[in-house]
């Protein structure tokens, strides 16, 4: 009787260890499966980039050669020279930094302020404002770009200056089109490019931040803004990195708005708006020189971003784990 029980327990032990082995094997298989998928799709991610780099340094002759190899035998920089010339590279990069990058950083700051207000305080009509905030995420910027452009060309505060103009003939309405203010003012107020989603990410983070420290500072007599600056901001490095990366990238790549703001103002054109100039200068897609130059221009255009990304990458990859966007 006793003996049979021991036997039973021994066999059950063996069974569990067999089960463990099976789960271990399954885990290993699953790991291998994951690696295969990740590498395959990683190849798909990298392929266009490698292709772009290779094509941009190929000579136009070898480009048309069907027996060409993947790795070019010689490096040809003519495409880059032409791309720099057509894009007016120095000037357009400078413009991008001056207008887009500055407004990206302004947005990082202004969105944090607005989001803190939403996350930490209760006030009248908060729900209405939240709905409007959601609307800004939902309604894409092309919907409002035309009135924005026309308003900027005759800047007016709720029609007061326009009325003054009609009554007295004094025109106080400024024309801001063709200046950097078209980029800076909305970003400064926290309603710039895709600011809705940035505010949303901030709100999620601030809500998860423990209140105790801020309340202690509040009791010690610090004002709300002081509390925000010296307690909340220093402990939100994680979310600030994420938002900064998003904001920089979106502004750098912003084509639609930039091209609307710079219609006929080529001195203002950003790099993104200049890139298609290559096609205009060269004609249609498909010809060897056009493709090479276009891809060289693209490489030049994304290299600054890639450098910034390399610097922020480590923090960014880790921050994704801790931002805590919960939808």
């Amino acid at each position, binding site marked *: 009787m006793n003996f049979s029980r021991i036997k039973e327990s021994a066999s059950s032990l063996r069974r569990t260890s067999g089960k463990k082995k099976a789960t271990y094997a399954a885990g290993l298989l699953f790991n291998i499966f994951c690696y295969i*998928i*990740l590498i395959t*799709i990683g*190849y798909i*991610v990298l*392929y*266009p*980039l490698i292709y772009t780099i290779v094509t941009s340094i190929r000579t136009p002759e070898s480009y048309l050669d*069907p027996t060409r190899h993947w790795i070019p035998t010689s490096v040809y920089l003519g495409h880059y020279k032409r791309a720099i010339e057509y894009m007016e590279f120095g000037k357009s990069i400078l413009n991008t930094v001056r207008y887009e990058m500055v407004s990206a950083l302004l947005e990082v700051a202004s969105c944090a*302020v*607005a989001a803190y*207000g939403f996350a*930490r*305080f*209760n*006030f*009248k009509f908060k729900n209405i404002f939240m709905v*409007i905030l959601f609307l*800004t*995420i*939902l*309604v*894409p910027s*092309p*919907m*409002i*770009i*035309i*009135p924005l452009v*026309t*308003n900027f060309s005759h800047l007016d505060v709720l029609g007061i200056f326009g009325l003054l103009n009609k009554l007295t003939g004094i025109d106080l309405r400024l024309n801001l089109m063709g200046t950097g203010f078209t980029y800076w003012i*909305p970003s*400064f*107020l*926290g*309603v710039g490019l895709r600011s809705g*989603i940035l505010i949303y990410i901030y709100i999620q983070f601030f809500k998860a931040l423990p209140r105790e420290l801020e309340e202690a500072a509040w009791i010690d007599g610090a004002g709300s803004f002081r509390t*925000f600056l010296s307690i909340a901001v220093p402990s939100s490095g994680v979310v600030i990195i994420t938002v900064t990366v998003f904001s920089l990238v979106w502004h750098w790549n912003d084509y*639609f708005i930039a*091209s*609307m703001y710079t*219609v006929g103002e080529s001195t203002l054109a950003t790099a993104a708006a200049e890139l*298609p100039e290559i096609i205009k200068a060269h004609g249609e*897609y*498909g010809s060897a020189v056009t*493709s090479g130059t*276009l*891809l060289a*221009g693209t490489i030049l255009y*994304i290299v600054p*971003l890639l450098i910034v*990304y390399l610097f922020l*990458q*480590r923090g*960014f*990859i880790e921050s*994704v*784990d801790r931002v805590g966007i*919960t*939808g």
Partner: protein
Amino acid sequence: MRNKKRKGVESLKARDGLMFITPWIIGIVLFYLLPLIQSIVYSFSDVLLTADGMKISLTGISHYKYIITEHPDYTNMLTESLVSMVYQLPLIVILSMILAIMLNRDFRGRVFFRGLYFLPVIIATGIAMELIFKTTTTDISSSAPEAVAGSLFTTTDIMNFLNLPTGIADYVSNIVNNIFNLVWSCGIQIILFISGLQSIPGSLYEASHIEGATKWEQFWFVTFPMLGRITLLVVIFTMVELFTDTRNELMRHVSTLMKGGVYDQSSAMLWFYFLIVGGVIGIIMLLYNFKILKKWE
């Protein structure tokens, strides 16, 4: 000071809260709500550009009538945009969810793979991607079609071999042809999903493990339901993204019209398009909320 005390900390805090969002409110009114209303007005009127701004005269729904019934391309472009949205959306959402779950695990080379998969976030949101894909695809199709996915045999061969109905075969070969595009559209969605996965409390997994759930069951009964809200966010984000995609034929047409100064008709085109997409988003959200409410009852 005493007055403040009587009013209570709450009202003080309310005032401070308003102080924080006042700039935003000003910005929203001036640079968002006002232009939004203006653009609706434009779509219902004739806009003439003059030296002193513009002359607006209301004409009712004539622009809408024109673009829907008479415009040669509008309805075609509209259906094309909507169809491509319908078939890309589920693929992007599912693909990015799978990739996020894989990248969220603890494995060797995690930092490397994450860096790799976040790369599209940097490049793919802009004009650069459009140019890369347009040039690469025109080059490849003119020189060597086999090189597209690096495959030895073409997808049509496989489809013929499997003898599938043409509808499915077209769908699959469409996916394969657009695989670069799809994978590159997943950048931010992957980040959103990873961030959502991280916010699932670990105790849920521990509890389910003690109860004897397998990994597979954990996925379906813990991970999947907990990702509900973030999935909704990803769906909405992807729809808005696809809506404003510069590769979108309709968007391109509208932007050339805008640059040419045709404000009224282009506004009408955009608004009609947005009404459909926004309507769909609204229905999705309503359904989702309805589901949540049912769960809570």
